Structure formats: structure tokens, C-alpha cells
């Protein structure tokens, strides 16, 4: 099985031969090829041709914990998987450690009603080699687009991080792949204790308009209300207002975000005080400039 991706991986990714650019992130240094990374990501075109990076032929992606540690920085492992994807068109996330046995604080005598975390999901994959004995396997899912089987594992956290990197670095194919993997992993591993962290990452590393991860998280909590009993989930939900709001809507049987949002604030003409709702701003097609354009203000910028 020596397809183009194998050639890429064996020929370039592993040897770094003909590499003309470096990506540094945390402990890793990746020798990459401009032609390949720029083809996958619009982001890398700028540092490959302009700015200080193009002189140094290196870009250092700030890793979390490099001093400016916040959500805008990257997890070096996620970046590593992104680079893997550039050459393989796929990536494999390390499986998570099994959860500690959950325990009820309100000590009624009854044993845990929570279903035990499945040790092993019976493999329905067509006898694919199992790389790691401790790994969880996701049954082959027929995706709506009829794509080939996705090997997702249980590492929802890593998938969420890869997804965030894909959105940030504008790698659209990876964004789609990571979202799919995250959804698969969620379906099997929603009960894993790391799911709370995955949910947090999903709601903080992307804006609310990017729906893929958020929808998967919301669906899992909605479908498994017992998750709300978990302390980790409680903390995560309490901390994130957006998650809060979306769960509320779902509990009321509404879609997570409004399809037709009712705008009832903010667009008021600075001059005459006329309310001018976003959708109604006809002359400028949504370009609200602080004036309704119908008042007699000579400085009104709206063209009628």
C-alpha cells in the first residue's frame, strides 16, 4: 500500500529532506516544505513569503505555557498532529488513560448507578491492527458523506485541540476531519472523566459561530443527563455561560442557537435616535454607521 501519502511521509516528512521551512512549537521542531504546508493552510503563506519569519525560515508557534499561556496559544501535541495531517491527510491521537472509578458524594448505600466505562468496545472494524492494547476502539461508523472509516479513539480532548488549531491555522480539511473524530469519540467516550475538559476546550478555543464541537458536546450532555451529576461536568458548565445558555435552550426543546435571532438592541441612530435594526438597514446592506441615513444630519454617511 504505497499511495501518494506514503511517499510524502516516507520521502519528506520523516527525513526532512528538501525542507525549506521550520515550524517550532514547544519542544518540537518540524522540518517542513512550504509547498505542502501552504497548499493546506492559507495561514502559512504569509510567514513563508513576508515578515520576519520568511527571513528566518522559521516560525515559532507559541505553546501554552510559554509565558503568554492562554487559549490563543497552541498545544504542541495538537500542532504535531496538524503537521502529521499535512503529510498523511490523517492523524492518530494517543488514547487517554482510563478514568478513575467515579464515586458518589451523597453516600446512599446503593452502588453507582452510573454505567461502568466500557473497557473494551468489541471491535467491529475489519480486523485492523490494534496498535495499542490499552486503546479504545471506535466501531466503524458510516458517515453521512460515505467516507472511509475514521479511527477516532477516545481522546476527545486532543481532537478538540486539533480542531482548534485547524480553525486557527485555516486548515479546512483538518477542521472537518477533527470535528468528525471528536463526534465519534464523544459518542463512545462521553462517560470518560476527560470529557469535561474536552467540553471546556470546545467552548473556549473557537467562536460560537463555529458549531461542530459545541453541537457534539451539547448533544452528549443532553442525551446523557446523568453527566450533569458529575462534578467535572458541573464545574465546566458553570464556568461557561455559552454552554449554559445552549443547554438551557436544548432542555426547552429548542435548537442550541436561534436560527432567526431577534435583534432588540444596539442599532439606534446616533443623530435622531431612530431605531434601526440590523436587518432593516437597507441602503448599506448591514453596514451600520451610526446614522439612519434618513435624518437631516449633513454628516450622515449612509448613501440612499
Amino acid at each position: 500500500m504505497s499511495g501518494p501519502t506514503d511517499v510524502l511521509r516516507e520521502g519528506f516528512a520523516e527525513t526532512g529532506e528538501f525542507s525549506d521551512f521550520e515550524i517550532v512549537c514547544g519542544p518540537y521542531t518540524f522540518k517542513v516544505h512550504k509547498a505542502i504546508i501552504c497548499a493546506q493552510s492559507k495561514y502559512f503563506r504569509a510567514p513563508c513569503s513576508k515578515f520576519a519569519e520568511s527571513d528566518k525560515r522559521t516560525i515559532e508557534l507559541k505553546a501554552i505555557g510559554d509565558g503568554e499561556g492562554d487559549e490563543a496559544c497552541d498545544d504542541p501535541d495538537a500542532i504535531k498532529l496538524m503537521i502529521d495531517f499535512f503529510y498523511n491527510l490523517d492523524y492518530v491521537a494517543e488514547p487517554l488513560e482510563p478514568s478513575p472509578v467515579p464515586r458518589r458524594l451523597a453516600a446512599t448505600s446503593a452502588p453507582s448507578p452510573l454505567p461502568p466505562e466500557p473497557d473494551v468496545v468489541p471491535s467491529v472494524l475489519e480486523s485492523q491492527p490494534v496498535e495499542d492494547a490499552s486503546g479504545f476502539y471506535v466501531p466503524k461508523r458510516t458517515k453521512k458523506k460515505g467516507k472511509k472509516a475514521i479511527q477516532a479513539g477516545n481522546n476527545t480532548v486532543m481532537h478538540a485541540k486539533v480542531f482548534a488549531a485547524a480553525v486557527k491555522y485555516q486548515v479546512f480539511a483538518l477542521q472537518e476531519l477533527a470535528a468528525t473524530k471528536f463526534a465519534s469519540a464523544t459518542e463512545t467516550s462521553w462517560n470518560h472523566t476527560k470529557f469535561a475538559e474536552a467540553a471546556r476546550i470546545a467552548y473556549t478555543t473557537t467562536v460560537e459561530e463555529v458549531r461542530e464541537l459545541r453541537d457534539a458536546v451539547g448533544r452528549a450532555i443532553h442525551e446523557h443527563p446523568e453527566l450533569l451529576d458529575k462534578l467535572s461536568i458541573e464545574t465546566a458548565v458553570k464556568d461557561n455561560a455559552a454552554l449554559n445558555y445552549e443547554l438551557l435552550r436544548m432542555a426547552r426543546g429548542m435548537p442550541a442557537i436561534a436560527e432567526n435571532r431577534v435583534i432588540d438592541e444596539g442599532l439606534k441612530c446616533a443623530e435622531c435616535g431612530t431605531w434601526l435594526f440590523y436587518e432593516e438597514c437597507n441602503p448599506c446592506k448591514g453596514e451600520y454607521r451610526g446614522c439612519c441615513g434618513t435624518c437631516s444630519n449633513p454628516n450622515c454617511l449612509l448613501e440612499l
Partner: protein
Amino acid sequence: MPSQGLTTDVEFTPVWLILENAFTEIHTKNASKLSFEELYRNAYKLVLKKKGEELYNKVVAFERAWLASVRSLVVHTLSAPLLMGDEVGGRTLATTNERREAGEKFLRCLKQAWEEHNTCMGMLTDVLMYMDRVYCTDHRKQSIFAKAMGVFRDEILRTEFRQEMPVLLEVLRRVVLDQIQMARDGEAVDPFVIKSNVYMLEALYRSEQEVEDEKLYLRDFEPDFLSQSRDFYRGEGERLLKESDAGTYCRHAKRRIDEEGDRCRSTLSETTTPKIQMVVEDELIRNKMKGLIEMESGVAFMVDNDKLHELGLVFELEARVDPRKPELTKAIQRIVMEMGAAINNAAIAASEAAPTTEAVAPAEEQEEGGKKAAPAKAINAQTLAALKWVAEILALKDRFDAICRQAFASDQVLSTTLNRSTADVINSFSRSSEYISLFIDDNMKRGIKDKSEAEVDALLEKSIVVLRYVADKDVFETYYKKHLCKRLLLKKSQSVEVEKLMISRMKVELGNAFTGKLEAMFKDMTLSEELSNGYRKHVAGMQRDDGGEGGGAKAAELSIKVLTSMTWPLEAFRSGVDSEGMEGGNGKGGRVEILLPPEIRRVKEGFERFYAQKYSGRRLTWQNNMGDADVKARFPSSRHAVHDVNCSTYAMLILLLFNNDDNARGARLGGKEMTLEEIEAATNIPMDDLKRNLQSLAVAPKTRFLVKEPMSREINAGDRFRWNEGFTSKFMKIKVGVVSAGNKVEGDRERRETEKKSNDSRGFAIEAAVVRVMKQRKELPHAQLLGETITQLSHQFRPDVGMIKKKIESLIEREYLERVEEAAVPSYRYLA
């Protein structure tokens, strides 16, 4: 918008300060010091934390402020010549050179500002990529790049920089127009710097919607450019028409069109090419074509002086603006018609001059001692007019064909016009049919002598070329038949082969119906030949059988032409003088029998018997007036004992009257004297023919066999004739001139007759066509019947509508047709 619910809130200002600093560096060309990763991450962070809108607005404000400073730089480059508008006389105050340099400085500065803005905004877009993708897309905002372009337009081009001054967009427009004007005046301007500014105008839109046809170039520049160009070329065209000749004008116009095309490519925008070319074409060609063609040095002059190249230019120019080329077509048509009319008038003048020559000729004849050349000359003068006319028409056609081929690229429209004009010229000349026939006649008789096959072929082709244009083919047929008839009967034709060749050409060109009768004439000739031979053998046989019949006298030999009466235009042999006399005698019944002497009568009767044996039921009508005879005559004082005299049949009859010795043919002629009236009574020859023949025999000096009393030119009643004993001639063979032998242009009376005849035959043709149409259609409205009739007849002649109407009336009277009373439009019904 409120933004709670984030785990870590970000303070906007410190992050923005980092970005703002970086943007300043980018704008001051220090981008290579900046870390893209850091900038992107910071912008990303702001958007992630829902500060997208704030960031967006800050960037816009930053650009606005930056561009305001750029604007003042650009304004700085404006110098006095540019700021003073046309109104103030800026154009006139500064020298061209100053204005050009000032303009270029301004354009270069603006170009630089634009290009730098583009580069910087490219980098800002890189940094703000996440904002563009997430914030702008989801909030239906313009991309930051597009927004910044709008800011450039507003801040640089549209912001008033000084009171009472036009904004830079206006200045730019004026400067570019001024530069273009300088280029047109021959100054060398920098096309690239203008082109860069045009790129800018093409990249900017009037409003945020970025509608394709709202580009600044299309809305704020191109219309002014076009209208300025229109004014310029209108003026230039008018000036050139006054100052230069048409050839120069054409070359100039063509150069201008090409120039403007090139200018659009090099300096402006390709999209303008068709528009500006339209303007130049309008102003230099479409609106000026008429004036150009009618100039003193216009098309007429070019044709006169064979300026083919310039004609080609005129053609090319007009072909550009209108595939129908109306002005050139009109002009060419007019010129052809004028030249044709000149040829026609010359021919008419020549033919009107001719009769006087003819009248003088006989007088000369007497004075000069009866030279036969004189009347021949007179006749030739007529024929010459015809030859000249045909030659000139051919030359005219050749000339314009050459022009059409070489200058007009054999253009379809113009060839058609030429053909139509030539046809008009030919058909507007009333004698065209006759002259063409005369042309052929002359060539058949003389022209083709000593000519090679190819030359003869070319000659025939020429005839056909002219003939093709003749509308009234039936008239031509009449003349041709007449002329052919004379050629055949009088053996004037140089070559029967060529005659037949001509007929076959006509057949190809005009069809079987046209040549049918002509071919029949040839057939008659062949048959007559056989008949004569047959008769000769027959007579020889008879003489052997009962040898010595008629006292051993040898019977006169007979060579005969039997002509089918409908085929041959025998009236051709009656000259204008005697046509009236012949009209009476034309009818078979009314014909006066010519009195023949016995020896001749015997021959005639002998042939009639012979012919009746061969073809029973056919009647022969003898055309004595057309025959000729060989007689032997003896004159005592002449040095030849016997003269062979060839004369007309009538002349022979007259001479025989003076024969003394009935038994000895060709013996001495007696001295008896006869009056004109006695001769007429003895022969029954029509008086006019008689007079003419007597003129030949008694007046013409070379053949004066008879003496007339009193001696005068004219033959008058009571004149007496007697044998001229003293006749001498150094020739043994004497030919007595046949007055009517030569072909010539018809006299007026003759023409009227021909016309009448052709009108009659046209009448029949029209009636036949009407009946044919009605028989097929049964019922038809008047207009349609007219149309179909005209179509049917068009290959023969152009029918006169009045005549068709008359013929329809007459058909109704004779109950072939009836009017349909109930019809809405006048209609007819066919009555079987």
C-alpha cells in the same frame, strides 16, 4: 455587544497597541522585523474573545488616519498648473512641458500611494485573516481589504483638501485627460504611470456594494474621456476637411483609430477600446463621410486620377462604420452614372451629326468624280459611333471593375452597385441594343479578320458582357436578327464558325428561347445550299435528257436561298426611303408581280417545279429585291470585249430591257431609248427601287451603263434613258453598287417601325404570359397578376405596366378573363 461568559477576559487596548505599532511598521516598510506569528495570534485572540467588531473598527480608523496623511503628501505634489482648472486658464498659462511634468509628478505620487496601500493592506489581511473569516463572514461585513479600498477612495480621492478646490478624483481625471490630449498632440507622455492610475480607478467602486458597472473608472472617468474625445475629434475632423485633401484625411483617420486602440491598450483600459473607436469613427467617419466623399479631392477626384490606394482607404473607413457603405455606394453610383451619361450623350451627338454627313455624301460623290468611299464613310461614321459607344462602355466597366477589385476588396455591396449602375447606364441609352448588335456586326464583318482565336474569344466575351446588362433583350434580338440576316444573305460574315460561336454563347447567357430563331436562320442557310446544289444537278440532268431545249441557249444558273418567312427579318432590306412603298406591297396578296423576261422566268418556274416536287404544299414568295445577278455585257469602246457585271436582280432586269439581241446573251445592247415610266411598266419594279437602281446604272460614274436625259443626280418622272455606247472601264469585272447593302444606324422612321414591331411582339408576349399565369391560378388579384407577369417576362424585357393593363383589358374583352365583382381587391378570373 455584551461579551460575558469567557473564561479568560482579555483587555483590548494592550493587544491593540501591539497590533497598531506593527501596522505602523508595515506602512513604513519595516514589515520584515515583525513576527507574523505574534501578530496573527494577537488578532486571533481578540476575535476569539469577541472583540472582532472593535478590532475591525480600530483597523478602519487606523487606515483612515494613515491615508489622511498620505493625502497631504499627494496634495503636495500638486503645482499651480494643475490646480488652476480650465476655467482659470491653467492650460494657457503654463507651457505644455510644465503641465506635462507637473501632471506626471502627481500621477506618480498617486500611483505610489495606491501601490503601497495595496501592499500594506495585503499584509494586514494576512494578519487579520481570522477576523476576515470568522467575524466579517458571520457579521456580513466587507472584508477588511475591500473596506480599506473604500477608505482609500474616500480619504484620498473624495475628500476635499482645500476649500473651493476640486477633490483629487476630479484633479486626477483632468490630469489624465490633459496627458492624453498631449499625447494626441504628439507629446511623449508616460503611458505606464497613467495606466497604473487607471488600474486604481478600475479597482475602486463607487459604493460598498462593488457592483461591476459602478467602478470609478467606468463612472467617473470613462464618460468624460469619451466626451472630451468626441469634442476633440469633431473639431479635428472639421479642420482636416477644410485644410487637407481626402487622401490625407483618410490616412489620418485610420491612424487616429489605430492610435486610440493602442492608447487603450497601453495607457487606459481595453474595455474602452470599442467605445473610443466608436467615438472616433462617429466623428471622423460616420459624420464626415459625406463631406469627405464630396470634397474637391474626394472620391470623384480619386476615380479620375486612379488613386486606387486612397479609394481603398475611403472604402476601409466606411466599411468600418457601416457594412452597407451607403455614402461610398452612392458616390460610386453617381460617378458611374455621370460618366455613363457622358458616353451616352457623346454617342447621341455622334448619331445626330451622322445624317447630315449622309445628306452631303451623294453630293460629294458627284463632285469628286463618284468615289464610292464617300457613302461608305458616311455609313461608317454611324457605325463608328456605335463602336465607340460599346468600347467606352466596356472601358468604363473595366475601369470600375478594376477599382472594385483593387480598392474595394471586391466588396459584395459595391460590386452589386456597380453592376446596377452599369445596367442603368446601358439601359438609359435608347440605342444600346442596336449599338451592341452593330458592334458585333462590325466585328463579324471586319473586326475578326486576322485575329487569333483568343482575341476573337475575348471580343465575343466583351459583347456578352455588355449584352448581359441589357434589359430589353427582345429589342436586341430584333436588331441582331436583322444584322445577322444581312450578313448571311450578303455573305459579309468573315467566319460562319465565329457566328455560330457567338450564338452558342448567347444561348448560354440568354437561353434557348432567345437563340432559337437565330439558329433557324443558320439552318435555312445550310438547307438552301443543299437545295441549290440539288437544283443544279437536276437542271444538268434535264439538259442532258432533252439537250438543246431553248435553242441550245444555256439556261441561266440559279443560286437560291429559301428562307422561312417568320424567321427572317426581310424588311431589313428595305431602306428608310422605300419603307412606306413596301408596306403596301408587303401583303402577299397585294404584291405586284415583277415582270421577268422569258429566259429568267423559265429558270424561276423551273425551280418552282423542282421545289414543289421536294416539298409539296409550300409556297415560295420571291424576294427579287434581295437578289443579285451576274451578267456579261459588251461595250464597243471598252478595251475588254466582255465585262462581267454583277448587279442586283432589278438592275439586271433594267439592263435586259436595253438588250438588242434576244438570242445572244451579253451581246451588244441597242440604242433604244426608254422613259422612266416605260421602264416601270416593262418591269413592274417598285418606283423607289427602280429609281435607286437607275441611279446606280445611270448616275454612278464607274457603272454608268445608261445615259440619262436630262443629266442630273435625281431620277425624275419623264427622264429618258438610253444605252451608253461609250462606256469604258479598265476592269473586266464590274460590281454595281447596291445602295442598301451597308449596315447603318436606323433612321428615325426606321426606328419607329422597329419600336412598333417590338411593341407588337411584346404585346403578344404579355398576353401569353397573362394567360399562362391565369390558367394556372384561376383567380388572382390585380397586383399579384402584374407581379407574376413581370417576373415571367423579365428575362426578355422590362414590361410596361400600362401595356400590361391594356392587354388585360383586351383579354377581358375577348372573354379570356373576367373581373371578380365580389372580391375585396380588384381581381380576375380565368375563363376556360
